[in-house]
């Protein structure tokens, strides 16, 4: 499989922004090494200011790296941008592009012209994409009459009209309602899956669920550094450690310390519900910790097991462990059981 994107020790710093007055240098990216095979949805997950957008801007030839190298479809972003631009496109969430005086179809046609697409081909693609995104009835409406969500849908379509080989999606579902966001995610996944020629999508998102659902591979990025790269499933597995079980038993006196002492149990907590006469127990196991030993112990204590539920670790759990805080900027809560 060919490599769509490759970066080597890629770094980018800025003199400016909030640091300008202090004369400081803001390091937006530090020694980023990624390799993205074609035909993949590759996610960049990180909090605000992590460097996701800077990385996308370098890869989309809008920004030069300060040091290191980046290649898109084998071309160097530094001096071969003229070969990269015809095969890429980018959609940013919340962007306000286009001209309000033109209709949806006209705006899309205009942007297609900048890629040299003949009008007939462009209009056919626009028609199809408008249908898929349920925007056909707005084709002849001026975009200054559109709602934010509809305008975002139009921008989204703009990215696909040129049929790029590599597409950069920077928070593409920002401003979309739940249904539209779902349609959008499905469309992107189908677009990659059903493509005759391999298509690659680089996605930045704030939404864990979106990253988990869409991405074949994820890079977790913070303060300009890549902290981990793997599939969402592996990230959850590796970063979360062992499994966690919620076990409900009928009420009976028991020795909590003896349960904590079971080999493989990392931590144990419980709560008693007098009303229902049950005890909720939470067992966090070390990697390889055995559930069988717990069940055996509970039985030997004379506790009747009513329910066993394995807790699935989320991507957010992995993210918190790696970055040390939630994606929305909050601290990892005290109730995070790890």
């Amino acid at each position, binding site marked *: 499989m060919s490599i769509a994107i490759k970066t080597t020790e890629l770094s980018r710093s*800025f003199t400016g922004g909030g640091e300008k007055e202090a004369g400081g240098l803001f390091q937006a990216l530090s020694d980023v090494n990624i390799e993205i095979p074609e035909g993949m949805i590759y996610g960049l997950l990180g909090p605000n200011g992590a460097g996701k957008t800077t990385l996308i801007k370098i890869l*989309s030839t809008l*920004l030069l790296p300060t040091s290191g190298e980046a290649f898109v479809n084998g071309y160097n972003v530094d001096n071969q941008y003229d070969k990269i631009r015809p095969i*890429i496109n980018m959609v940013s969430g919340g962007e306000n*592009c*286009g001209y309000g005086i033109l209709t949806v179809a006209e705006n899309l046609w205009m942007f297609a012209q*900048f*890629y*040299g697409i003949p009008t007939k081909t462009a209009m056919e693609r626009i028609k199809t994409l408008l249908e898929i995104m349920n925007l056909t009835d707005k084709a002849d409406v*001026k975009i200054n009459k559109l709602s934010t969500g509809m305008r975002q849908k139009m921008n989204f379509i703009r990215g696909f009209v040129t049929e790029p080989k590599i597409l950069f999606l920077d928070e593409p579902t920002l401003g979309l309602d739940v249904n539209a966001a779902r349609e959008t995610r499905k469309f992107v996944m189908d677009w990659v899956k059903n493509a005759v020629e391999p298509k690659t999508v680089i996605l930045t998102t704030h939404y864990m669920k979106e990253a988990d659902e869409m991405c074949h591979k994820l890079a977790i990025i913070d303060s300009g550094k890549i902290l981990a790269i793997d599939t969402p499933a592996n990230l959850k597995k590796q970063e979360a450690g062992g499994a966690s079980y919620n076990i409900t038993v009928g009420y009976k006196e028991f020795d909590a310390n003896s349960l904590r002492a079971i080999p493989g149990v990392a931590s144990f907590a419980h709560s008693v519900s007098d009303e229902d006469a049950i005890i909720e127990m939470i067992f966090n196991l070390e990697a390889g910790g055995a559930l069988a030993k717990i069940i055996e112990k509970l039985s030997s204590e004379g506790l009747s097991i009513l329910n066993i539920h394995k807790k699935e670790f989320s991507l957010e759990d992995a993210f918190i462990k790696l970055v040390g805080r939630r994606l929305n900027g909050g601290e990892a809560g005290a109730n995070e059981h790890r």
Partner: protein
Amino acid sequence: MSTDELIKNLRGIWARAYVRIIGVNREPSWLIFELFFPLLPICAFAFVYKSMNAPSDYLGFVILGGAMTAIWMNVLWGMAAQFFWERESGNLTLYMLCPMPTMAVLIGMAIGSGFSTFFRVIITFMIGKFIFGITLHIASYWWLFVTFMLTIAAVFSLGMMMASFFLLYGRDAWNILTVFMEPVFFLSGFYFPVKTLGYPLGAIASLIPITLGLDAMRQLAFKLGPATAFLPVGVEITILIILTIIYLIGAKYLLNKLEYLGRREGRLTLRWQ
């Protein structure tokens, strides 16, 4: 440039020009802002000349000059300031991202603006001519048309150069534009023959192509035009051609520099900078 690339660029130029051309039909407010309002100072100057019993050709000079202000206004607000707006809306990022050269976008913008301005100047002039009963003595319709088109070309080439320049110093764009407005109205001889300024000042004013274009058009359209000429029409047309070429080269140079700086410093795509 290959034929394929040329066709691609022409598609882009047409697409960007389309926005301006279609805008003329969809925003009737221009009738007020770009037709009625420019007529007011024209009328003011015309009444002054009339009260002084000046020859009617002087009224014609004022009406032609006043009509031509539409070009300058369009260049300032529709060209020079445009990239600044394009950056704010996010369009500039998309222009830089696409395979078509940004110069094609600029040319499309200029052609679209030139097209709409062409009709605005003619309509404003015809209304003024009708109100004040001006008689024209056209020496050559062909050369008058050529001069008019060359003036538009030269002024919009200057506008293309200014677009990049203003984007580099974007934060001060508004102040610079305002500062540029009145001195140009004065130096270009919008409301009087530029010869009145004398040759040294007139020569400096000639860097603004509208000065020479207006002077040449007055010579070609009015009986008293040759008597108030700053330079012979042939010379003025030649200078207009030279200025067009210089400004186009300047626009290309500045745009390349701007694009490089934009990529190096992130100025064009990061709005906070």
